[in-house]
């Protein structure tokens, strides 16, 4: 049995019951950043050094989407044979930002519509001898499937 680990632990809490992206928020102006900003707020009107780690919203609305039908180069670790996948850009309401992710296995662009509700899920990105590496993906929220 392989260990299930986050493919990017500092960005993504992969616990299956509550998958969350981890960003940072400025304690002074409350700007959000993803991935985390390590030393200073990037709002030019602020620039404070006081940032806190926060989980980002786990759902949002679909801003745009596409797919990839040809195998990308390394460092993408592709299954053999290559399997196409969709990619979503999802707008988070509280954070007022758009975050990319692959779309859950089995969901094609024909299943997607700009404006639909999407939620964060955990899936396996790739495996090696020891580990299964988990990543965040976006999936149409329950009741949103077109």
């Amino acid at each position, binding site marked *: 049995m392989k260990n299930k680990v986050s*493919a*990017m632990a500092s960005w993504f809490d992969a616990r299956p019951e509550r998958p969350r992206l981890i960003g940072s928020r*400025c304690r002074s*102006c*409350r*700007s*959000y*950043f*993803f*991935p985390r900003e390590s030393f200073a707020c*990037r*709002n*030019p*009107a*602020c620039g404070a050094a006081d940032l806190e780690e926060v989980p980002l919203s786990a759902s949002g609305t679909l*801003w*745009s*989407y*596409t*797919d*990839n*039908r*040809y195998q*990308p*180069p*390394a*460092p*993408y*670790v*592709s299954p053999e044979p290559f399997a196409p*996948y969709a*990619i979503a*850009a999802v707008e988070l309401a*509280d*954070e*007022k*930002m*758009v*975050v*990319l*992710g*692959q779309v859950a296995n089995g969901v094609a*662009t024909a299943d997607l519509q*700009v*404006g639909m509700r999407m939620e964060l899920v955990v899936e396996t*990105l790739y495996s090696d001898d020891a580990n299964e590496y988990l*990543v965040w993906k976006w999936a149409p929220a329950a009741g949103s499937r077109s």
Partner: protein
Amino acid sequence: MSERQVAVLGVGMHPWGKWGRNFVEYGVAAARAALADAGIAWRDVQFVAGGETIRNGYPGFIAGASIAQALGWSGAQVTSCYGACAAGSQAVSVARAHILAGNCDVALVVGADTTPKGFFAPQAGERGDDPDWLRFRLLGATNPVYFALYARRRMELYGATDRDFAKVKVKNARHGLENPYARYRKLVTEEEVLASPMVSDPLRLLEICATSDGGAALVLTSMAYARRRTTDPVAISAVATVTPRYPNTVIEMPNFATDSAAAAPPPPVAFRDSIAAAAYAQAGIGPEDVDVAEVYDLSSALELDWYENIGLCPPGDAEKLLNDGVTTLGGRVPVNPSGGLSCFGEAIPAQAIAQVCELVWQLRGQAAGRQVEGAKIGVTVNQGLFGHGSSVVVQR
């Protein structure tokens, strides 16, 4: 006319293609062509600015010096500029600044590239702090994935169709047909575009810019120097190399997320709209003064975005502009008469320089087979990875 102009006395290119030779060779060929065009000897060049790319950027492969050495060390001052797709404009900007500061009279700007096959890939190794590496590892997000996200968004916002996108390709293929420096010189039909394989929905193979080898060069001089040699030189009246303003709310390659607009409202002018606007302001002109434009058509759909971004029409009207023939040769403001990236493919550090070469030929009336009649003012626009805007105004 602005007093802060520099003259473009010579332009030259090495044809785009997949030649598989060292980039220095293309750079030297382009430089020699530009020097011959200007009637200036290499040893009279006082400053060399090279457009750089990371693949060429290893020790011993710094663009400006590598090409200067191949032309024969002459003691000229040198710099190399990296700004992804905007590298060439940064080289133009530095050379222009040296001329306007009185530091030199004659500068050579040169960029050249040799590209690998297929998708652009990030640097090798484990690079867990490099967003360009991580977007491939964690998302499998190639460049066309980002172009396709913009294309789908355009369809959603403005009702653009597959057929509109295909028409851009058809137009550019026709424009580039007789351009001796273009790599792809073949007419295509809408049906052929729409029958080409889907790469990233809604973009098809024939709608996505390829990667190419090529080289381009400019000889820039002070206006006083140019007027001693010619009566009516083409001049560069603006070079904008702007960055985004916070918060940048459009997803940019190679990022995973946009800035957050939670604390600060989006700027009144979005990044892509700010690029040519900055150049127009420098030159003291407006979009209504533009006779011809070279825009960065990384995809067919992106060319339509640029029509709006450079002020040729309001948001949502680009399809109408295209379908009315306004941006086709013979129309009011032809866009990409060179054939654009669609006919060239991208040779990154050379591309922004090549855009200027085309406008110079257009303004001199030397663009055989693709001439925009009576063109007096042209604008280039492009955008490089990591927030590099680039726009150059050329006028006569």
